[in-house]
């Protein structure tokens, strides 16, 4: 480092001449790239994780110049500084001495009362802010959150607990406790109703539909003898009887669940009586300690991962989307791995190496760069419309005109994605095969093994890390791909999972939900984008984690295999 002294005496022009500024600029580019990646991940993580935190509810007076002051009860969502000129342009009478003002988006909830969930508030005019302990938030099955003070809880119209206090007095806490008990009871009944409706009645409907198709099929084949018809009718009558019983049970359950109501006072002072059955959960964030909040946070995360979506996908969980994504990727992997490997083995080991093989190799290589939407268009045109409707004509004529495979579904989506990712597997496997030394192969052949045995016992095991790499890349690509799926079978809300207890258990013809499409759909097609946004961040975070986990799992498998066959690699 003797030249350090010289550098110290550099003039500006010498410094420029040395090329150092350019090196620094290049270093800057690296820094920017790194910041962008980490910043992006941090943004998703913070917003996605923040979604579940029970935010404090603020109560204050909002007195905008030129309009009557009113009490505002809301959660703060986000704040930004805006030039006062913009506000003046929007018709808000802002005092002249302001140049910049803080503006906040407040979630007021109570969409059924106010018409909208959110309003923009200028912080300057939002005063006397308190966080009263008795303010509660209730998540509901419809109309979004409810914010207000609990006034009374009723059973069959009779008051069981009531209070006039807005502070945590004994009567207020007693009412709250009654309310919590009532919610717990309603939730249990709600789960029962859900089980009956979804599982039991769903199974009956499935059986009835199969009976209908069976009858139609016999009819089409002219095999519908009176005996068979009587048999089908008997089965149908049996299912109908079961259905009747369940229906009666449902009526009872609904009568049960609608027993309780509660009375709430909202921020404009008006009092509303609502059914407890509509509430998913109620909590008082201002009264919660950190531990309680953490517990609440955990239960929300669990709900997000395991529950079904509510309210046009903007609330609740994303379980069907997780399930659909994983299922589709699994099916795709099962398809892509053998076919990709066989193709690569053929290209490298069996086909005669010449101009044609070289051309095919380049073509397959370049297919990896073809836009995914093109595969989607191909999948829709060839698989769904061409093959699918052919399969329907041949095997499911009884269901026509409603298509079975002649419409997008899990199977077509998996095959399309398999086609999309098969070049990746072929290229990676070929690379692995080409790296295996000739003498290993020749040694095996010299010992009398056939070509197939050499391939199976020597070549493929040695190439397995490369194959796994290809599959990893394929899985990573498939899990994040949305555009082709939009054409071949993803829907915003699938009525049931593609895997359930009804014969034939895996429903390859069914449409499914997908995390990536969920992000697109909820973020861009939802009627209430503002309310849906936090959930989209959470979903995005989840998708990133799922993809990272898939990658990680595959990397572990690869390393494990590499370790196992290390002795082979001389």
């Amino acid at each position, binding site marked *: 480092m003797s030249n350090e002294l010289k550098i110290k005496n550099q003039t500006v022009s010498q410094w420029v001449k040395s090329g150092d500024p350019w090196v*620094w600029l*290049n270093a*800057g*580019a690296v820094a920017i*790239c790194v910041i962008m990646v980490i910043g*992006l991940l941090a943004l998703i993580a913070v917003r996605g994780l923040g979604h579940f935190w029970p935010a404090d509810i603020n109560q204050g007076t909002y007195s905008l110049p030129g309009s009557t002051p009113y009490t505002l009860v809301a959660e703060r969502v986000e704040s930004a500084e805006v030039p006062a*000129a913009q506000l003046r342009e929007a018709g808000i009478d802002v005092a002249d001495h302001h140049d910049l003002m803080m503006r906040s988006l407040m979630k007021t909830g109570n969409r059924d009362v106010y018409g909208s969930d959110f309003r923009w508030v200028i912080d300057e005019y939002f005063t006397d802010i308190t966080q009263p302990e008795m303010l509660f938030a209730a998540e509901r099955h419809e109309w979004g959150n409810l914010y207000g003070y609990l006034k009374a809880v009723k059973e069959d119209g009779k008051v069981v607990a009531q209070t006039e206090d807005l502070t945590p007095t004994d009567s207020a806490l007693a009412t709250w406790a009654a309310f919590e008990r009532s919610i717990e009871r309603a939730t249990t009944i709600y789960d029962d109703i859900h089980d009956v409706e979804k599982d039991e009645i769903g199974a009956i409907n499935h059986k009835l539909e199969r009976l209908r198709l069976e009858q139609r099929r016999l009819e089409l084949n002219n095999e519908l003898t009176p005996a068979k018809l009587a048999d089908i009718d008997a089965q149908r009558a049996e299912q109908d009887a079961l259905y009747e019983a369940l229906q009666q049970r449902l009526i009872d359950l609904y009568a049960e669940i609608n027993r309780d109501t509660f009375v709430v006072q909202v921020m404009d002072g008006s009092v509303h009586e609502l059914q407890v059955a509509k509430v998913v959960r109620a909590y008082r964030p201002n009264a919660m300690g950190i531990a309680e909040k953490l517990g609440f946070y955990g239960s929300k995360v669990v709900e997000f991962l395991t529950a079904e979506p509510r309210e046009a996908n903007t609330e609740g969980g994303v379980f069907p989307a997780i399930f659909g994504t994983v299922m589709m990727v699994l099916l795709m992997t099962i398809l892509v791995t053998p076919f990709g490997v066989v193709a690569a083995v053929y290209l490298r080991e069996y086909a005669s190496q010449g101009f044609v093989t070289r051309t095919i190799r380049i073509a397959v290589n370049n*297919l990896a760069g*073809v836009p995914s939407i093109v595969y989607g268009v191909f999948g829709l045109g060839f698989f769904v419309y061409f093959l699918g409707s052919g399969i329907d004509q041949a095997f499911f004529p009884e269901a026509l005109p409603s298509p079975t495979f002649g419409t997008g579904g899990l199977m077509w989506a998996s095959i399309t994605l398999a086609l999309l990712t098969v070049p990746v597997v072929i290229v990676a496997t070929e690379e692995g095969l080409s790296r295996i030394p000739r003498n290993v192969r020749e040694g095996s052949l010299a010992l009398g093994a056939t070509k197939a045995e050499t391939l199976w016992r020597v070549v493929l095991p040695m190439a397995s890390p490369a194959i796994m790499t290809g599959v990893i890349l394929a899985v990573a690509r498939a899990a994040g791909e949305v555009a082709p799926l939009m054409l071949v079978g993803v829907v915003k809300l699938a009525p049931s999972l593609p895997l359930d207890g009804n014969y034939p258990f895996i429903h390859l013809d069914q449409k499914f939900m997908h995390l990536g499409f969920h992000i697109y759909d909820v973020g861009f097609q939802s009627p209430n984008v503002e309310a849906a*946004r936090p959930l989209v961040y959470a979903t995005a975070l989840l998708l990133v984690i799922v993809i990272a986990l898939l990658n990680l799992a595959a990397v572990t498998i690869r390393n494990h295999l590499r370790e196992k066959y290390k002795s082979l690699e001389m």
Partner: protein
Amino acid sequence: MSTKADQKIPELDFDTPALKRHRKVRAFKDRSASVGIAIGGSSVILAVLLICFYLMYEVAPLFSGASIEQKDSYAVPAAESGKSLYLTSEEQAEVGFRVAENGDMVYFKVADGSVIENVKNPLGQPTAFAVESDTSRMIAFAYADGRVLVAQQVYKTTYPEGERVITPSIEYPYGTEGIQAADFAPRHLSIRDNEDRMTLAVVGDQQAQVVRLSKDVNFITEEVELTEDSADIPFVDGTHSLLISGDQRYLYVANAAGAMSEFDIRDIDDVQLKEQIDLIDGDAQLVSMRYLLGQSSVMVADSAGRVSQWFNVRDDNNVEHLTYIRDVKHPTGLVDMAMEHRRKGFATLDDRGVVSIFNATSSRQVIDERISDGSATMISFAPRANGLLLEDGKGLHFFEVDNEHPEVSWSSIWGKVWYEGYQEPTYTWQSSAANNDFEPKYSLMPLAFGTLKAAFYAMLMAVPLAICGAIYTAYFMAPGLRRKVKPVIELMEALPTVILGFLAGLFFAPFLEENLAAAFSILVVLPLGILLFAFIWSRLPQSVRFMVPDGWQPMLLIPVVVLLGWGCVAMSPVIELSFFDGNIRGFITNDLGITFDQRNALVVGFAMGFAVIPTIFSITEDAIFSVPKALTQGSLALGATYWQTMTRVVLPTASPGIFSAIMIGMGRAVGETMIVLMATGNTPIMDFNIFEGMRTLAANLAVEVPESEVGSSHYRILFLAAFVLFAFTFVVNTIAESVRQHLRKKYGSL
């Protein structure tokens, strides 16, 4: 041991039945593995290559021509009533309808010509006849006493015993007595009817008159009340054809020589001659003047064999002028012209009996076939344009027409087309609309343009960052740091684009709109700030500088960049206040006159650039890193600085790799769907403005493919778009690959 074994060898029998069987099984396994792998492997490769062929297979029908084939021939049904004035058929082309010269209305079976019903004209021999339009099935007769009778074809379809039976009949919506339209014997008649009013134009030997029946629904009885107004209009000598425009605003009166007078008849009490236009060149004679579907294009056929299309175009003062748009020419004179009922297509019949079928939008001729002789007088399309009726001296002939995609031609996809209602020829993509007589606009140009625009802005962002980053990472960075930085940047590649698109559309677009000033100041501040920091760093005492080893500069710069970026965002409102009166958006729209969309090319460029960076970065980094160390060491030994070695030795050697990195990145940007779909407004415009959005081929596919009808022209055009995308990326990738191979050889000697 070994001697023992040696002694045993001769005793080994390799040909025991069990071993033989075993060998056979092994040989069989080997052979079947070869066959299986060959079949499996080649079928996978074929399946992958199938994409290309399937796309072409779906596209091909677009450019294949049409065919016409004679099905039935018979004598003119009810020939005693005279030749046909009008010929048509109902939806299924089962029942034909003709109006004879004596006014009889004849329904007949298209298959064999047998008469189903011959409805005698209730008011006797007409002097003039007019058709409202083929689609409305309304016709009108004028009689010598000046009355006009309006008749309507009605088809009732029933299914007794599962068989389709079509029962035709005639109704008279304005009564069987007719409307007293004139006090002279009309020679020419034109009718236009809609829900609000009906307009008749009648021209006699010396006079001409317009009659309008306004329809008002009585609120109490809910009956339609008719109010009749009429006005004389100037008589045009030698009147040959009359036409009332679809909105009943203009009346076109053309004489045999093709001189046309356009009257403004919107106000019936104040009919004015608006313009006089010569429709025909030279001394040819007018043969037919009729509306194309939608009643906005006037088609003029003449005896010299020319068919010209005219429609109203608004000038700068918002005044409509009937304007010549395009024409098609035939070698000989024309006899008749027929319009398609559902598309902007028409057929012509010339005096040799040659039928030609055209599409007006694409100005494409799909059929030119001699199917009759000089005696042919009339042609007519079946409503679905799958059949054609022709009347000639021998009788009636029914032809089957197979003409699926006439509206698509090479020039209508890639060239400018003058669409109805447009001021000038444009590149427009508009594939569907609410109404039936809509003219589909299938120009892929705006989409291709949008695709390149998005790719351009993405590359503008990605190329400098990725390549500079790669240069540093591969050549200057400390190995320890490199091992950490490379995976981080390559992590970007695994990030699903739907997440990038969502962030771009819902987070970055509004953020950028609010902090526009920051976005542009960052462009200046960041490089300057980095340079300034570097300079200050070089002036710092050695003891400080030695704390950070060479090749760790990015770690020093990370806080600098974060601070500068944060500073720019924080200063954004201040900059906006001091330079743009607190409203930079207003400044752009009002002072610069540039349209500003929230989801614009800047947002797309940023988000897609982000998606492309890892692709370019890793290929470039590999290329630079694999430059032989001997080269750089030689250069350094000769006294070159690191930077000189970089630019003079390393970069030239690695340039093929960098080139192919850019090409592959470009291919990815061109095909990216979700980011563009979510981060732009998806409007198909042709404007390079960075503050406006675009619609790319890929996003267009995602939006429109699920909704297009299988096998329709729209569906096939979308497949064409997919094929274009496919071909483009395929070619780009192949070029990248071959250039890399080629240049690698060239620099291999280095």
